[in-house]
């Protein structure tokens, strides 16, 4: 009996560990998409967060300073996407793909430049178990805060208006381009916390490819969670649970690759099963061009 309880406790803890970075990334994605911008670059934003956090933590000896740097780096990278997706009305999917490539390449380049070695950084001051728990709690707090922000505040209403019908929002005196611009940057800052968690809480270093597709799972979590912060958090927990199961079932002789693929397969099934029944924000992914700019 005690063993069962212990096993359950272990898998719950592991689920939370695996879900926390996904929650941050998914919340960042939700905020962007509710404003009308799809951020395919979440993976890159997490990478930037994880990398900058390690560099600054290593340089200053403070994990907190590292975390702040990570958040700023994620926001800065998201700002590139925010700019081209709003002011230039560029294609968000293509630009987001570029963001991912830039971040992965930039981190690998920086690693060699700063540490003189490819692959991984040195170990740096990290958060430790207590900080890890604080970040997990922060993820849930942010989920509730974002839900309240979107549903109960005038700014939240503005963000949603830009995601549903930017032209009507503009007619009501809202600037869709500015709203989207800042929503994407704020989303980037939140998603970057997921990267910070990976490099400074789960581990204490940066290694190439450490985000390992989590930004993509987060995109699926956004859809799975029907574009709501609470829903996306639930989806992230679900995917986190699958990742946690991986370690348990691996001992039962099930190939690890199959287990690793499970969250992605679940996302594919969800994508197909949910697609007919859920609706993205109406203007999600559609560039907004103000009337006076149109020829």
């Amino acid at each position, binding site marked *: 009996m005690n063993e069962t309880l212990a096993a359950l406790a272990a898998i719950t803890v592991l689920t939370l560990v695996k879900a926390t970075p996904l929650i941050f990334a998914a919340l960042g994605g939700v905020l962007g998409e509710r404003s009308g911008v*799809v951020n*395919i670059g979440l993976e890159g934003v997490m990478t930037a967060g994880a990398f900058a956090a390690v560099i600054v933590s290593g340089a200053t000896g403070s994990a907190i300073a590292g975390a702040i740097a990570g958040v700023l780096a994620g926001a800065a990278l998201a700002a*590139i*996407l925010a700019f*081209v997706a709003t002011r*230039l*009305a*560029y*294609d*968000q*999917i*293509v*630009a987001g*793909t*570029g*963001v*991912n*490539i*830039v*971040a*992965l*390449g*930039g981190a*690998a*380049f920086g690693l*060699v*430049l700063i540490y003189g070695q*490819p692959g991984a950084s040195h170990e740096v001051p990290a958060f430790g178990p207590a900080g890890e728990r604080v970040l997990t709690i922060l993820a849930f707090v942010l989920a509730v805060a974002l839900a309240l922000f979107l549903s109960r505040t005038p700014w939240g209403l503005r963000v949603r208006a830009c995601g549903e019908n930017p032209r009507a929002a503009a007619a009501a005196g809202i600037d869709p381009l500015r709203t989207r611009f800042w929503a994407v940057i704020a989303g980037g800052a939140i998603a970057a916390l997921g990267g910070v968690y990976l490099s400074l809480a789960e581990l204490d270093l940066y290694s190439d490819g450490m985000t390992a*597709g989590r930004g*993509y799972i987060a*995109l*699926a979590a956004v*859809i799975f969670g029907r574009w709501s912060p609470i829903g996306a958090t639930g989806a992230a927990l679900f995917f986190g649970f699958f990742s946690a199961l991986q370690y348990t079932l691996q001992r039962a002789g099930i*190939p690890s*690759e*199959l287990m*690793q*693929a499970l969250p*992605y*397969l679940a*996302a*594919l099934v969800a*994508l*197909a*099963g949910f*697609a*007919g029944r859920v609706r993205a924000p109406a203007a999600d*992914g*559609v*560039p907004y061009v103000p009337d006076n700019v149109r020829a």
Partner: protein
Amino acid sequence: MAAFFKLRIVRDLGVALIVVFGVGSIAMLLARVSPIDGFSALFDGAFGTTSEFAETLVSATALLFPALGIALSFRAGLFNIGAEGQIILGGLAAGVAGYLVPGPPVVSIVVTLLAGAAAGGIWGGIAGYLKAKFNANEVIATLMLNVVAVLFATYCVNGPLHFPSANEGETPLLARTAWLPTIIPDTRLTIAFVIAVLLAIALRFVFTRTVFGYELRAAGEAPDAARRAGIDLGRVAVLAMTCSGAIAGVGGATIVTGVLHRFNTGLSPGYGFVAIAVALVGNLEPLWIGVAAFAFGILQNGALSMQAEANVPRDIVNVIEGLVIIALAGRRVISARRST
């Protein structure tokens, strides 16, 4: 002359060149290397000797296949971000088929390439089918399928398709009969290059002169009008994604049969993503994509000697490629269709 500079392709190439030399120079300065030394190491590595030039064409070939596939899907308004996974599975199929199916040279080569096309086509087709049947977002689907492809291939070569004579993560060396013949002796440049160029020419014909090409364009640029004109958008989605995946899959197969002579789970250093930049720089037009693939082949291959000779980490090339993608994300043709 003025008309020449108004061509979109010329402007796009100009933007790409500015990014390459601008960002490249900054990165070299960060690495405390003079840009002149850095770029001369890069170009020396890309053109210095016959074998280096051949390697540049090898890289260009590896990029040209997936870029052509991506262009096909983009033309239909579909974002195939899954070329990477399609390359890997195409390579896996070719590696297994090439090892298991013995035969005279021509047969064995045709079989391996077709196996690659089939595997890549199925992988792309899944995303197309999910799109057509359930209106599932193909961007997310192909991103998921990329990860699943790597895991699946790793599982296969270490599990059920593990052959005693192979190392971990690899299939055994292919029989000589399945190797693609080289076109420059003692280099790794094979007829894969010729196949890719012929494919580009063929696709140009398909895009401009066939009903399928017309349907792709109609579905991509004016989906509502296309639907009213009786074009089955679901069928176009499945066909376009399957063809797109098959082309990338053949590309993966040629890496196996022409370059590595065995499948290795690391056979693509992100060709499927860089190929997006190649397709965009090439304005989604097959022949221009060929030019763009050559330019990116110079970067990919030159980066190795830039790192070795001038001590500039080659990862900067990825940053450059990503920035080129961002800079060229404003294409009208792929922005048109976002609501189906």
